[in-house]
């Protein structure tokens, strides 16, 4: 979805309006370019509980939806803006802990903590981003990795965050697991559409200018530092709000949920799906979160199988399962 999708194009028109040179297109690629793909995905998510509504299945699906939101947020940072962030779980933790601490200490409903969560995650994004975003590539990755660990270790050692055992008894957002699932899906759907819309706006283009060539972007008047900061803060907000959903879903959080492995898994979802491609990232996130559950029958070998599958996919399809288009559709 990197290409700017024109407004008001009738459904079905994009493929016929495609200029020559693209060659005959496979059915798969037509399906992938279809603008209704997102709605189909949403329909699948909304209908899934009618297929299987056991508490276990609902829990897996809710976690998957939250994971999609994380991936959509990290995709802004890594996919759109090209900033390799290895500590994205930090923002997830900040959101989860902020809502968890406020709701349990002050006996607030979770929704009431949202303004505070937004303020704190934006601040976290600015504080972590300010020194970090002056660095490029490898250095940026290393420093984000460090910040991710700092947040986790801090949560592990503070009293207010409950130390290693974390926080219990966080109120849910809704009455039961089914309604929680639907609320999560709707929030995540809005977040995914929002990320996609940002991605093809003026700001989203600027993110990709920075990713493609920072100097050329500057020469065109793009204040690259501010633009990178915007990507970072947007990523922080998406991650923080996913953290609130996470806290509501599990009602208990501990530092163990926000390890480097979590950051790595979200990054894997983005890369597996296709960096900068919102559809790909959603698919990647669902696969990364659900596949280990589907492989449960393999018992101890499931993560081995998971790893082998991922390596195979990346060897066969390095651009990701559903990569971003670099061709845009004619208006």
């Amino acid at each position, binding site marked *: 979805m990197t290409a700017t999708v024109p*407004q008001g194009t009738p459904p079905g028109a994009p493929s016929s309006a495609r*200029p020559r040179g693209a060659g005959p297109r496979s059915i798969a690629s037509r399906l992938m370019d279809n603008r209704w793909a997102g709605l189909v995905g949403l329909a699948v998510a909304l209908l899934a509980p009618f297929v299987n509504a056991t508490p276990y299945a609902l829990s897996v699906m809710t976690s998957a939806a939250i994971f999609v939101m994380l991936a959509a947020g990290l995709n802004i940072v890594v996919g759109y803006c090209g900033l390799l962030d290895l500590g994205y779980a930090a923002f997830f933790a900040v959101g989860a802990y902020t809502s968890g601490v406020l709701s349990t200490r002050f006996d607030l409903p979770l929704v009431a903590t949202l303004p505070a969560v937004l303020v704190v995650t934006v601040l976290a994004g600015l504080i972590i981003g300010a020194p970090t975003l002056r660095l490029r590539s490898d250095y940026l990755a290393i420093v984000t990795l460090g910040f991710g660990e700092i947040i986790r270790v801090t949560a592990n050692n503070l009293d207010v965050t409950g130390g290693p055992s974390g926080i219990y008894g966080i109120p849910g957002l809704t009455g039961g697991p089914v309604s929680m699932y639907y609320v999560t899906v709707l929030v995540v759907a809005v977040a995914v559409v929002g990320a996609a*819309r940002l991605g093809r*706006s*003026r700001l989203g283009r600027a993110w990709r200018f920075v990713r493609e*060539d920072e100097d050329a*972007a500057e020469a*065109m008047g793009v204040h690259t530092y501010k633009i990178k900061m915007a990507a970072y803060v947007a990523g922080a907000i998406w991650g923080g709000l996913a953290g609130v959903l996470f806290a509501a879903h599990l009602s208990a959080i501990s530092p163990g949920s926000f390890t480097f492995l979590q950051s790595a898994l979200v990054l894997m979802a983005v890369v597996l799906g296709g960096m900068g491609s919102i559809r790909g990232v959603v698919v990647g996130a669902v696969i990364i979160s659900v596949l280990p559950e589907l492989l449960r029958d393999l018992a101890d070998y499931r993560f081995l199988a998971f790893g082998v599958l991922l390596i195979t996919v990346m060897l066969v399809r390095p651009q990701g399962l559903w990569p971003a288009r670099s*061709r845009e559709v004619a208006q």
Partner: protein
Amino acid sequence: MNGTGNAPLLSVEGLRLSFGGVLAIDGLTFGVGEAEIVSVIGPNGAGKTSAFNCVTGFYRPTAGAVRLRGRDITGLRPSAVAALGVARTFQNLRLFGEMSVLDNVRAGTHLRIRQNVLDALLHTPRYRRGERESTEQAHHWLDFAGLRGDRYGPARALPYGEQRRVEIARALARRPDLLLLDEPAAGLNHGEKAEMLDLIRRIRELGIAIVLIEHDMGLVMDVSQRVVVLNFGREIADGPPDEVRRNPEVVEAYLGRDADEAEIEQARASVAGGRDGGA
């Protein structure tokens, strides 16, 4: 039109730039008037691109000042310089390769379209208007630059000569008062060079001043009002093309000190004849 009468659009005053102990630019002074074409020439490594980088904010000069309509812009970051109406191209094409050709040129409209995050999230009329304007502008400047290739595909897929046009279209979409072109004709064939010459003239007719770095002497002598010659970071000449091409120091810079009379004569003929005089 030699930029001395009125307050010049761009004035570079006593510019010095050193990397560690190496002086890349040693006292460069020149001015560019409105809608004037000034070429900066010199052998490879003479400091031409470094001078561009100082003017556009990519390098901070060690000493000296860069003024735009009298305003000191020395040390501003490149995006701030761009915002004041200076656009540039790069010696080695710097397109956004994975993005569409149109998106590349839309980069030039980044500062012109007004759109905030809420507009983008809600697709407000202002968002749609901004996107439409940006697209129209992009098409307009691609037409102006004479792009024939596919505008919707990724920029990296275009042939080299077409990529040059895209880069210039992108710079023009910034609607600059001053355009710095760093070897726009490098790597172009004869026909493409002629078209580039035409394009540069048409840009000037828009009232845009141009500073040109170019090795193709034919093109330089043809299009410039003035020529500034750099050698080892030092400015050795500044004047109209006719005067510069007769300057013995310039010929010597291109051929070296040990060149004998015959060689100098030959070089002079080649420079004057408008063929590629670059060493």
